[in-house]
């Protein structure tokens, strides 16, 4: 749904751009292609890496790691699992719901969802290319630590 909207908006803007200034539109296309081609190797590598990781870490393995009695260790482990995997949201949320049903705690799921979205170990090659090593590392570490605050509060409020 949101994809279709994105395409319609893009197409409309390009049409407007084309009628206003053909040369600038061509320039925009060239810029789009150049920046895409520039990051393509990293994109491809990351996508392959995601496939490799998810073939090892399936929901069964994950729910073994973060059972109800796993406590803070379980929170940390689920945080780590979330940090290294990169699952699209519409797969991740139903997975998280399933994990809850299979006996995972809210605090653990809170950590999993938060690191899943904010921390990206596999996408680090892409991030480094734009932000450099130091900032990429710092951002991911801070987001990882922050996820435990999120987990704690979710555990208190929802659990």
């Amino acid at each position, binding site marked *: *749904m*949101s*994809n279709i909207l*994105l*395409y319609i908006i*893009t197409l409309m*803007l*390009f049409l407007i751009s084309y009628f206003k200034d053909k040369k*600038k539109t061509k320039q*925009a*296309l*060239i*810029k*789009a*292609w150049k*920046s*895409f081609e520039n*990051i393509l*190797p*990293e*994109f*491809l*590598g990351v*996508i*392959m890496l*995601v*496939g*490799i990781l*998810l*073939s*090892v870490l*399936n929901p069964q393995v994950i729910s073994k790691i973060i059972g109800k009695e796993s406590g803070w260790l379980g929170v940390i482990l689920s945080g780590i699992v979330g940090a290294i995997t990169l699952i*699209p*949201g519409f797969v991740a*949320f*139903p997975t998280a*719901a399933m994990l809850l049903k299979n006996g995972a705690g*809210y605090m653990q799921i809170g950590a999993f969802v*938060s690191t899943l*979205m*904010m921390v*990206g170990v596999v*996408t680090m*090659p892409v*991030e480094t290319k*734009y*932000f*450099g090593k*130091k*900032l990429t590392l*710092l*951002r991911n570490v*801070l*987001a990882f630590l*922050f996820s435990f*605050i*999120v987990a704690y*509060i979710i555990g208190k*409020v*929802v659990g």
Partner: protein
Amino acid sequence: MKLIKRYQFFLITVIITLVFLAVNRQMGIKAISITGYSFKEMALVIPPVFLLLGLLDVWVPREIMIRYMGEGSGLKGILLAILLGSAAAGPLYGAFPVAAVFMKKGVRFTNILIFIGAWSTTKIPMFLFEMSALGARFAFTRLLVDIPGIIILAYLLSSFVSKNEIDEIYKKAENL
């Protein structure tokens, strides 16, 4: 030779997948099917993102971006960064090229970090999904913690890097 070096990381992952396929057929097939799925996602979302970036780069003058999101844009810049990040579609790696264009256009560094944070975790389409899968209480709690969290993290992060380091990153973005 240069091409091989650029695609070195990708080639290594291809080799690992092939090893998986040889050692454990089932796991290898699973890896390939997940990769295929991610490819589809990338092929769908990434082209419009880059096309829009091309348009933004060509049409929106630097002065306007600076006025709305640059140094001295204050609360307006922060809110815009959160809104733009939350309205985004696609995985986090799509946010980094956008950040690069923002750098070119003189957007304030903390606002770029806030934008990245919002893209990573407060996306509106994802929020709706989260609410239906995990419940409104879960989703709202996370959102309410995340919004101040993103802003605090952005300022904390930028306090760790010097002015020179930020300039260096901005300069690099010019060539991306």
